């Protein structure tokens, strides 16, 4: 019994992490928070467009990008041990993955708009096709090196405190992945602020969008391109599972608690904060993968939100039966564009 689930040792789970390992754990929580927030925000638009599984699709379809980048880098830099050694280096792999992600999103968009194929089927066709292409590329051209996303691209959130630091006038400011993710988060925030109306209208009603003079196609295209940047950057720093989950779970949780988009965006931030902090402690308690524990915590929050949603709907129904039900307490199943 006790060998399977470790005892909840307060000292080990709650105290030591914030005394002797405080710096490391602080960066882990901050990193988890930044990734979950950024992915949650972008993911909210994916949820509205019924493209929630884009993250999972991209985690597979980057494989040909990795293989292609490796082949090109080895070709440009043949022979020397150093040159070929760098062919599997992080920068080359990042660029390859990014290129493949851009191709994936554009192909999905194109396939979906230029044929009768629906969004979800388009995602399925493109990502499985590209993944298979990657497998073939590797077996044919690069069978002698270990080349898979787990090995060469995916980062590990637990190690962010150990990486190189971003320096300002000679002083360590923040680990590089955290600094990079913070910039991506800020850009995402600014972008949502600037194009709030365009994104909103084209997500809900592309027809209305074009009648308002918004090019829904372009908005969608830019969203997809930015999505590729966010996802590949996050893969590179924290691995796949956290990204795939955090594209969906925070937005889904927040949408159960509120129907106003601005409030949903704030709730996503709250969800990100709770799941990264409690996730870390869950991981410390069970001595398990940190990313995994954060996702499980996030899903736990979703279950809580769902229960409270069910209870609220019941109560609202109850209340509306006798006399006066206050308007607006009735939770509607879908998000409405404007705050109530």
């Amino acid at each position: 019994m006790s060998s399977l689930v470790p005892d909840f040792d307060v000292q080990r789970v709650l105290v030591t992490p914030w005394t002797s390992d405080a710096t490391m754990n602080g960066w882990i929580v901050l990193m988890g928070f930044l990734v979950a927030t950024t992915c949650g925000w972008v993911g909210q638009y994916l949820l509205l467009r019924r493209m929630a599984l884009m993250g999972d699709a991209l985690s597979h379809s980057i494989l040909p990008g990795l293989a292609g980048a490796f082949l090109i880098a080895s070709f440009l830099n043949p022979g020397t041990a150093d040159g070929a050694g760098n062919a599997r280096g992080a920068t080359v792999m990042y660029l390859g993955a990014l290129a493949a992600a851009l191709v994936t999103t554009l192909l999905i968009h194109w396939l979906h708009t230029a044929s009768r194929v629906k969004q979800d089927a388009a995602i399925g066709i493109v990502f499985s096709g590209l993944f298979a292409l990657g497998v073939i590329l590797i077996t044919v051209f690069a069978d002698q090196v270990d080349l898979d996303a787990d090995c060469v691209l995916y980062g590990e959130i637990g190690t962010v405190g150990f990486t190189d630091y971003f320096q300002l006038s000679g002083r360590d400011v923040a680990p590089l992945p955290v600094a990079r993710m913070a910039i991506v988060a800020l850009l995402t925030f600014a972008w949502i602020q600037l194009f709030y109306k365009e994104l909103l209208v084209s997500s809900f009603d592309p027809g209305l969008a074009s009648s308002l003079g918004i090019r829904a196609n372009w908005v969608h295209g830019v969203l997809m391109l930015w999505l590729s940047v966010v996802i590949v950057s996050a893969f590179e720093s924290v691995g796949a599972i956290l990204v795939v989950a955090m594209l969906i779970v925070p937005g889904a949780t927040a949408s159960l608690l509120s129907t106003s988009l601005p409030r949903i965006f704030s709730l996503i931030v709250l969800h990100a904060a709770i799941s990264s902090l409690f996730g870390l402690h869950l991981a410390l308690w069970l001595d398990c993968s940190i990313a995994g524990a954060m996702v499980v915590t996030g899903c736990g929050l979703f279950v809580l939100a769902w229960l409270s949603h069910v209870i609220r709907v019941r109560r609202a129904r109850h209340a509306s039966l006798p006399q006066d039900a206050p308007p607006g307490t009735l939770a509607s199943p879908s998000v409405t564009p404007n705050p109530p």
Partner: protein
Amino acid sequence: MHRLPTFAHAFTCLALLLGFCLPTGAASAVPPLRVVATTTLVADLVRVVGGDRVQVQSLMGPGVDPHLYKASAGDMSALGSARVIFFTGLKLEGRMEDLLRRMGQRGRQVVAVADAIPSDQLLRKEGAEGHPDPHVWGDPRLWSLAITPVRDSLTAADPEGAAAYAARAAAYRTQLDTLHQWAASRIATIPKPQRVLITSHDAFAYFGRAYELDVVAVQGISTVAEAGLADITRVADLVKQRGVKAVFVESSVPPGTIQRISKDAGARVGGELFSDALGTPGEMHEAGGERYDVGTYLGMLKHNVNSVADALR
């Protein structure tokens, strides 16, 4: 109305939590030198050279494929507090190696044990000259070269133990030497034409070179692509053509493909070899009238040599 009590509860919980978080400041007695090793093989090497003075934590457990390792929260705090971090190198640990080397540049003491092996003794596949095969422990003579960096870095971290480390390192070098002689004589009992070692993934190149076995792997090094049909047919044909008596499965790779070849070509499965990870410490195997612990390098290699020699003869 409903919100208020919940809020109060939450506040109380938070206050309690903060109360627990006050530092207690109790320090334990002087502990042994705490070090971390990535794989079971490296951990074993450090344990042998370090003895009682060193407490080794292995990040990857027994039977774990290093390509598929996921770090746990405990691993991270061990990594954060270890005095020395040992790893294989030669890209075996993937992206983790980049990270560890960078930690080294930032002032932490990290040691890639395979860096001590001269470049001209490493095996390189055609078309991948920049990526030497990392499975160097297949040859005890190469693995013996990794003793020196372990001894030196332990001595640097704990100068008082210098004599002990030197003695243990020298003794282990002799043991590995004896092991190599024994393994060579054991494999020599297999008739030359039958010395074909067929395994699932490409981890026995050094073993094969050391003991003059032709090594054929069904799969490449990467585990993302499964074995192709052509690979399976090619290997099955080879088995029939050379009259190979047995094929081998590995402890850290699923056995399906090898079982298929065994069925297709009529060679039996000669047993499970340890490739990328040792067995569980204390797991005793018996062969050739000898009992050995496959959780150690010595026991693991003996197990592999005995399995191969018995099955192919």
